[in-house]
Protein backbone atom coordinates (compact mmCIF):
# COMPACT_ATOMS: atom_id res chain seq x y z
CA UNK A 1 0.00 0.00 0.00
CA UNK A 2 1.24 3.50 -0.86
CA UNK A 3 2.55 5.31 2.23
CA UNK A 4 3.87 8.79 1.30
CA UNK A 5 5.39 9.20 4.77
CA UNK A 6 7.64 6.18 4.34
CA UNK A 7 9.93 7.55 1.65
CA UNK A 8 10.44 10.39 -0.78
CA UNK A 9 9.85 8.04 -3.71
CA UNK A 10 6.37 7.15 -2.43
CA UNK A 11 5.57 10.81 -1.71
CA UNK A 12 6.61 11.62 -5.29
CA UNK A 13 4.40 8.82 -6.62
CA UNK A 14 1.45 10.21 -4.63
CA UNK A 15 2.13 13.65 -6.13
CA UNK A 16 1.97 12.16 -9.63
CA UNK A 17 -1.36 10.47 -8.79
CA UNK A 18 -2.75 13.74 -7.39
CA UNK A 19 -1.69 15.63 -10.53
CA UNK A 20 -3.38 13.06 -12.76
CA UNK A 21 -6.61 13.09 -10.70
CA UNK A 22 -6.61 16.92 -10.58
CA UNK A 23 -6.15 17.09 -14.36
CA UNK A 24 -9.08 14.69 -14.89
CA UNK A 25 -11.34 16.63 -12.47
CA UNK A 26 -10.41 19.97 -14.07
CA UNK A 27 -11.00 18.55 -17.54
CA UNK A 28 -14.43 17.15 -16.63
CA UNK A 29 -15.55 20.37 -14.93
CA UNK A 30 -14.40 22.58 -17.81
CA UNK A 31 -16.05 20.22 -20.29
CA UNK A 32 -19.31 20.26 -18.32
CA UNK A 33 -19.24 24.05 -18.19
CA UNK A 34 -18.70 24.25 -21.93
CA UNK A 35 -21.54 21.81 -22.70
CA UNK A 36 -24.21 22.97 -20.18
Amino acid at each position, binding site marked *: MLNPLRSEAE*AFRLLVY*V*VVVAAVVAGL*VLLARAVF
Partner: protein
Amino acid sequence: MEAASVTHGSHAGVHDEEHHGPPAAHRSSRVEPQLLGMLLFIISEVMVFGAFFTAYFFIRVVQGDEWPAAGTELPKLVAGVNTCILLSSSVTMHWALESAKSGNRFGLKAGIFTTFGLGLTFLFIQINEYVHIGFSPQDSAQGSVFYGLTGLHGAHVAVGLTLLAFTTIRSFRGHFSPEEHRGVEVPGIYWHFVDIMWIVVFLTVYIL
Protein backbone atom coordinates in the same frame (compact mmCIF):
# COMPACT_ATOMS: atom_id res chain seq x y z
CA MET B 1 20.36 7.78 12.50
CA GLU B 2 19.90 4.46 10.76
CA ALA B 3 22.10 2.82 13.35
CA ALA B 4 19.91 4.36 16.02
CA SER B 5 16.83 2.92 14.32
CA VAL B 6 18.39 -0.53 14.26
CA THR B 7 19.24 -0.23 17.93
CA HIS B 8 15.74 0.92 18.66
CA GLY B 9 14.32 -1.92 16.61
CA SER B 10 16.14 -4.55 18.61
CA HIS B 11 15.18 -2.75 21.82
CA ALA B 12 11.52 -2.80 20.74
CA GLY B 13 11.80 -6.55 20.14
CA VAL B 14 13.11 -7.12 23.65
CA HIS B 15 10.45 -4.75 24.91
CA ASP B 16 7.70 -6.79 23.26
CA GLU B 17 8.99 -10.12 24.51
CA GLU B 18 9.85 -9.29 28.12
CA HIS B 19 7.87 -6.24 29.16
CA HIS B 20 4.22 -6.68 30.11
CA GLY B 21 3.10 -3.15 30.92
CA PRO B 22 2.29 0.00 29.04
CA PRO B 23 5.00 1.37 26.71
CA ALA B 24 7.62 3.70 28.11
CA ALA B 25 6.86 7.43 28.28
CA HIS B 26 6.66 9.19 24.91
CA ARG B 27 6.49 5.87 23.06
CA SER B 28 3.69 3.99 21.35
CA SER B 29 3.59 0.22 21.33
CA ARG B 30 2.42 0.21 17.68
CA VAL B 31 3.89 3.17 15.77
CA GLU B 32 7.53 4.24 15.35
CA PRO B 33 8.15 7.66 16.98
CA GLN B 34 9.39 9.21 13.71
CA LEU B 35 6.33 8.02 11.80
CA LEU B 36 3.98 9.05 14.61
CA GLY B 37 5.52 12.54 14.68
CA MET B 38 5.13 12.94 10.92
CA LEU B 39 1.56 11.59 11.05
CA LEU B 40 0.58 14.08 13.76
CA PHE B 41 2.22 16.87 11.77
CA ILE B 42 0.36 15.95 8.56
CA ILE B 43 -2.95 15.61 10.45
CA SER B 44 -2.49 19.08 11.98
CA GLU B 45 -1.66 20.47 8.53
CA VAL B 46 -4.76 18.89 7.01
CA MET B 47 -6.86 20.52 9.74
CA VAL B 48 -5.27 23.95 9.16
CA PHE B 49 -5.83 23.81 5.40
CA GLY B 50 -9.25 22.27 6.05
CA ALA B 51 -10.30 25.33 8.05
CA PHE B 52 -9.46 27.60 5.11
CA PHE B 53 -11.14 25.28 2.60
CA THR B 54 -14.24 25.28 4.81
CA ALA B 55 -14.41 29.07 4.49
CA TYR B 56 -13.92 28.74 0.72
CA PHE B 57 -16.71 26.18 0.28
CA PHE B 58 -18.98 28.17 2.62
CA ILE B 59 -18.69 31.17 0.30
CA ARG B 60 -19.19 29.21 -2.90
CA VAL B 61 -21.60 26.43 -1.90
CA VAL B 62 -23.53 27.60 1.18
CA GLN B 63 -23.70 31.30 0.32
CA GLY B 64 -23.69 30.71 -3.42
CA ASP B 65 -21.58 33.82 -4.00
CA GLU B 66 -19.65 34.25 -7.22
CA TRP B 67 -15.94 33.40 -7.30
CA PRO B 68 -13.88 35.54 -7.46
CA ALA B 69 -15.72 38.61 -6.18
CA ALA B 70 -17.48 40.83 -8.69
CA GLY B 71 -15.09 43.12 -10.54
CA THR B 72 -12.02 41.03 -9.78
CA GLU B 73 -10.14 38.48 -11.82
CA LEU B 74 -7.60 35.80 -10.94
CA PRO B 75 -4.48 35.49 -13.13
CA LYS B 76 -5.02 31.85 -14.18
CA LEU B 77 -2.24 31.80 -16.77
CA VAL B 78 0.39 33.13 -14.37
CA ALA B 79 -0.78 30.69 -11.69
CA GLY B 80 -0.68 27.86 -14.24
CA VAL B 81 2.91 28.66 -15.18
CA ASN B 82 3.75 28.93 -11.49
CA THR B 83 2.19 25.49 -10.95
CA CYS B 84 4.44 24.04 -13.66
CA ILE B 85 7.45 25.63 -11.93
CA LEU B 86 6.52 24.06 -8.59
CA LEU B 87 5.87 20.65 -10.17
CA SER B 88 9.24 20.86 -11.92
CA SER B 89 10.85 21.46 -8.54
CA SER B 90 9.41 18.17 -7.29
CA VAL B 91 10.93 16.38 -10.28
CA THR B 92 14.37 17.90 -9.57
CA MET B 93 13.95 17.01 -5.88
CA HIS B 94 13.30 13.39 -6.85
CA TRP B 95 16.31 13.49 -9.19
CA ALA B 96 18.49 14.87 -6.37
CA LEU B 97 17.60 12.05 -4.00
CA GLU B 98 17.97 9.35 -6.64
CA SER B 99 21.39 10.82 -7.43
CA ALA B 100 22.32 10.73 -3.73
CA LYS B 101 21.27 7.09 -3.54
CA SER B 102 23.35 6.17 -6.57
CA GLY B 103 26.40 8.17 -5.47
CA ASN B 104 26.05 10.77 -8.24
CA ARG B 105 27.23 13.86 -6.38
CA PHE B 106 26.85 16.19 -9.37
CA GLY B 107 23.23 15.10 -9.80
CA LEU B 108 22.58 15.62 -6.10
CA LYS B 109 24.05 19.12 -6.05
CA ALA B 110 22.48 20.19 -9.35
CA GLY B 111 19.10 18.69 -8.39
CA ILE B 112 18.88 20.23 -4.94
CA PHE B 113 20.16 23.63 -6.11
CA THR B 114 17.65 23.68 -8.99
CA THR B 115 14.86 22.69 -6.60
CA PHE B 116 15.75 25.60 -4.33
CA GLY B 117 15.88 27.99 -7.30
CA LEU B 118 12.52 26.84 -8.66
CA GLY B 119 10.91 27.13 -5.21
CA LEU B 120 12.28 30.64 -4.83
CA THR B 121 10.97 31.55 -8.29
CA PHE B 122 7.51 30.23 -7.34
CA LEU B 123 7.45 32.37 -4.20
CA PHE B 124 8.67 35.45 -6.08
CA ILE B 125 5.96 35.07 -8.73
CA GLN B 126 3.34 34.54 -5.99
CA ILE B 127 4.37 37.77 -4.24
CA ASN B 128 4.42 39.58 -7.59
CA GLU B 129 0.89 38.28 -8.19
CA TYR B 130 -0.24 39.78 -4.86
CA VAL B 131 1.22 43.14 -5.87
CA HIS B 132 -0.62 43.28 -9.20
CA ILE B 133 -3.85 41.37 -8.48
CA GLY B 134 -5.88 44.49 -7.70
CA PHE B 135 -7.71 43.48 -4.51
CA SER B 136 -6.72 43.03 -0.90
CA PRO B 137 -7.83 40.63 1.88
CA GLN B 138 -10.15 43.20 3.50
CA ASP B 139 -12.04 43.98 0.29
CA SER B 140 -14.32 40.90 0.37
CA ALA B 141 -14.77 37.43 1.85
CA GLN B 142 -13.46 36.01 -1.42
CA GLY B 143 -10.35 38.17 -1.10
CA SER B 144 -9.78 37.03 2.49
CA VAL B 145 -10.04 33.36 1.52
CA PHE B 146 -7.86 33.81 -1.56
CA TYR B 147 -5.05 35.44 0.42
CA GLY B 148 -5.59 33.01 3.30
CA LEU B 149 -5.27 29.87 1.19
CA THR B 150 -2.48 31.01 -1.11
CA GLY B 151 -0.68 32.78 1.75
CA LEU B 152 -0.84 29.70 3.97
CA HIS B 153 0.64 27.67 1.16
CA GLY B 154 3.26 30.36 0.51
CA ALA B 155 4.29 30.17 4.16
CA HIS B 156 4.81 26.42 3.73
CA VAL B 157 6.94 27.06 0.65
CA ALA B 158 9.04 29.50 2.70
CA VAL B 159 9.56 26.82 5.37
CA GLY B 160 10.44 24.31 2.64
CA LEU B 161 12.95 26.73 1.16
CA THR B 162 14.61 27.05 4.57
CA LEU B 163 14.94 23.26 4.75
CA LEU B 164 16.22 23.17 1.16
CA ALA B 165 18.78 25.88 1.90
CA PHE B 166 20.29 23.71 4.65
CA THR B 167 20.13 20.63 2.40
CA THR B 168 21.82 22.52 -0.46
CA ILE B 169 24.67 23.70 1.78
CA ARG B 170 25.11 20.19 3.18
CA SER B 171 25.07 18.71 -0.34
CA PHE B 172 27.88 21.01 -1.47
CA ARG B 173 29.83 20.12 1.68
CA GLY B 174 29.54 16.43 0.84
CA HIS B 175 27.45 15.40 3.84
CA PHE B 176 25.34 12.87 1.92
CA SER B 177 26.20 9.44 0.55
CA PRO B 178 24.35 6.40 -0.85
CA GLU B 179 24.21 5.05 2.73
CA GLU B 180 23.25 8.28 4.57
CA HIS B 181 20.82 10.64 2.83
CA ARG B 182 18.05 11.18 5.35
CA GLY B 183 18.78 14.92 5.23
CA VAL B 184 17.60 14.90 1.60
CA GLU B 185 14.78 12.39 2.02
CA VAL B 186 12.85 14.20 4.79
CA PRO B 187 12.85 17.65 3.11
CA GLY B 188 11.87 15.79 -0.08
CA ILE B 189 8.77 14.30 1.56
CA TYR B 190 7.84 17.73 2.94
CA TRP B 191 8.41 19.38 -0.46
CA HIS B 192 6.13 16.89 -2.24
CA PHE B 193 3.48 17.45 0.45
CA VAL B 194 3.67 21.22 -0.23
CA ASP B 195 3.28 20.51 -3.96
CA ILE B 196 0.25 18.27 -3.37
CA MET B 197 -1.39 21.00 -1.30
CA TRP B 198 -0.72 23.51 -4.08
CA ILE B 199 -2.41 21.26 -6.65
CA VAL B 200 -5.54 21.22 -4.46
CA VAL B 201 -5.35 25.00 -3.86
CA PHE B 202 -4.74 25.75 -7.56
CA LEU B 203 -7.59 23.49 -8.65
CA THR B 204 -10.16 24.92 -6.25
CA VAL B 205 -9.13 28.60 -6.22
CA TYR B 206 -8.12 29.18 -9.86
CA ILE B 207 -9.74 26.48 -12.02
CA LEU B 208 -13.06 25.36 -10.54
